[in-house]
């Protein structure tokens, strides 16, 4: 079964501290993986996708096929990073996107 698991519902860190949002997936093939973000009172939007290998707003994510993980990391959290973060998987067959339950990140001053 295809599944995305985000084990933390809430993550609270201090400004300037490193942050890591965990994502594990279950998929038999080679999926495409994404991180989406939803800031307060804004729409859900794409943050980054693994094939782009970009750093967006200081965030990076590395696909670890051995551990089936795609954790999101940032070395120094900022208050404006406070938001809801969703990890998502797109299967390579029908291109269906499956989302995790989300992690709320709260960056304290």
């Amino acid at each position, binding site marked *: 079964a295809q599944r995305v698991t985000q084990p933390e519902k809430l993550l609270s860190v201090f400004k300037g501290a490193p942050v890591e949002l965990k994502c594990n997936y279950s998929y038999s093939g080679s999926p495409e993986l994404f991180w989406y973000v939803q800031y307060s009172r804004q729409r859900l*939007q794409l943050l980054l996708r693994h094939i782009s290998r970009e750093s967006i707003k200081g965030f990076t994510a590395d696909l670890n096929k051995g551990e089936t993980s795609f954790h999101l990391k940032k070395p120094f959290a900022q208050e404006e990073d406070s938001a809801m973060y*969703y990890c998502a998987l797109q299967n390579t067959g029908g291109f269906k996107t499956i989302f995790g339950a989300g992690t709320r990140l709260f960056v304290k001053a």
Partner: protein
Amino acid sequence: EAEVAQSPRYKITEKSQAVAFWCDPISGHATLYWYRQILGQGPELLVQFQDESVVDDSQLPKDRFSAERLKGVDSTLKIQPAELGDSAMYLCASSLGQRETQYFGPGTRLLVL
């Protein structure tokens, strides 16, 4: 900047009534998605269109839900009859193609009483 539009933004209805949601994707986007997001969960795909054709509706409760995209542009999602468990946020998204970035609308929050 072009955005996905949805209406209404909020809908309160009684169980057994019919409700309909409308989505206008970004112009030129061939792929359109309807998601349901229950409080505390991530979005769940209900139906995916490529132009006017359904490419995935495996999670759509077809006994009560229907979706159409007749001219391959805007789309309507209907629930008839609504049940208490249908209370959720209904999100529409669109993309240029099936592997392209999805752009989300603001959602329609449905409350069934």
